[in-house]
């Protein structure tokens, strides 16, 4: 039975995870020779090299059908989307999200093609509230671009999703063709954590592998900091002035001090990035968004209010719950102190504008 929900404002949830019912779900969408291979040996993946003591899923989200958590669209609607007044649940693949950590670029690209066709065929038609993100594999930008060309026109695809783990910072020129394609199709790039340090990726922190999931999860913003500084300073937003980036599930409050540091350095070291015409923080404000979950929870909640005053939170934040994962944020419970108007922007209006919903 659901607990009584207080009156809630409409929510556009920018991070809802749809899972496969089983390994066979992708098979009908997978090209040969990978289909035969996967049919016999399963779909291997390159996940995070850590196990969590609480697992990755909520313990109260099992569909009564007996299907795996997150794999039953009807139950997702009944359990989360409808009772929480979710206007759109933006679906972000669960288990193939880390596919860019797999060494074989052609295999990874094939999995992404299959997933994109699968989510379009099997999830979006279930409800007009389902829209979502296509996946691309970062190993081979040329194939990623072709996939964006193929899938982007679909009306329910609202962003291109990649994982935070990487072999190099995302501002690198190697990736620029992907950003050009995103801009051409007016699709933001959404970076989602999940496999930092897995597969062929670099270690998850600048000093290497931490020992366990607790440390790994806490350090995820490191990766985002490096990607963000790189994206700005490599001039990605000068080259692609309409390109937008969403930093999903990587924390929020680290942003202001990073930007202070970056702006300060830029004043002295501007000559290393002469293509930047504005302060670095201005590019971030105009091109980057962050999702809220898992929202920081200082003991003194006023401190979070203060952090929100230190950057353009009301225009840069997008609500996300991460349903049905273990660190789910309940939209009726978080950010209750925000004034109604700001909350409305963060809970739906910013996403509506960004994703053109």
């Amino acid at each position, binding site marked *: 039975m659901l*607990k009584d929900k207080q009156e809630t404002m409409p929510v556009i949830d920018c991070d809802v995870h749809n899972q496969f019912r089983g390994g066979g779900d992708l098979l009908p969408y997978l090209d040969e020779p990978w289909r035969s291979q996967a049919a016999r040996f399963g779909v291997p993946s390159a996940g995070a090299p850590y196990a969590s*003591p*609480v697992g990755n899923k*909520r*313990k*109260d989200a099992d569909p009564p059908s007996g299907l795996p958590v997150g794999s039953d669209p009807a139950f997702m609607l009944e359990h989360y989307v409808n009772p929480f007044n979710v206007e759109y649940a933006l679906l972000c693949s669960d288990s193939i999200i880390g596919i860019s950590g797999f060494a074989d670029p052609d295999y990874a690209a094939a999995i992404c093609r299959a997933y994109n066709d699968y989510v379009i065929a099997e999830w979006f038609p279930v409800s007009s509230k389902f829209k979502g993100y296509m996946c691309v594999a970062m190993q081979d930008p040329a194939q990623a671009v072709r996939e964006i060309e193929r899938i982007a026109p679909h009306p329910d695809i609202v962003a291109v999703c990649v994982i935070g783990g990487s072999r190099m910072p995302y501002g690198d020129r190697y990736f620029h063709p992907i950003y050009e394609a995103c801009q051409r199709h007016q699709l933001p790039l959404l970076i989602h954590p999940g496999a930092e340090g897995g597969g062929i990726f670099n270690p998850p922190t600048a000093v290497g592998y931490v020992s366990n999931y607790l440390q790994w999860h806490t350090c995820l913003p490191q990766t985002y900091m490096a990607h963000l500084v790189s994206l700005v300073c490599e001039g990605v937003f000068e080259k692609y002035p309409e390109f937008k980036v969403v930093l999903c599930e990587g924390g929020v409050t680290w942003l202001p001090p990073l930007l202070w540091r970056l702006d300060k350095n830029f004043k002295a070291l501007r000559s290393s990035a002469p293509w930047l015409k504005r302060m670095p923080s201005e590019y971030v404000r105009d091109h980057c968004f962050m999702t809220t979950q898992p929202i920081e929870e200082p003991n003194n909640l006023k401190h979070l209010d203060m952090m929100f005053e230190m950057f353009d939170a009301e225009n840069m934040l997008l609500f996300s719950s991460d349903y049905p994962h*273990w*660190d*789910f*944020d*309940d939209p*009726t*419970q*978080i950010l209750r102190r925000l004034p109604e108007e700001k909350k409305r922007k963060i809970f739906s209006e910013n996403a509506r504008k960004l994703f053109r919903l």
Partner: protein
Amino acid sequence: MAVYPVARTEEIPEGTFKIVQIEGRSIGVYNVKGEYYAINNYCPHQGAELCKGPVCGTTLESQVYEFIYGRDREILRCPWHGWEFDIKTGKSLFSDKVRARSYPVIEEDGQIGIVIGQPKQREGTEGC
């Protein structure tokens, strides 16, 4: 204060629990190794239905790099963010100040009763 009869002892064998509704509250009644405890079915963090979480043990205080498993079946872990609560007291394992409400339990003649609204109820009082 009032004692609410909620179950016969045989309804909640060792290692199981039952959710009961009393005056609009949902309460989990747990049988931990033969003793009964009642804990509010509401997580003090973000309000998940706490009793949907697994009953488990945990790692005890230890030396660095030592893992000692213990308190088996005495810990209730929230189904959302995994906070651990001592079923006997409702206390979270990371802070004395954070706790799920727990209620005294009275067991008499095979009948389990929950005590609600004790004057100045001390949350986390162990079953009498």
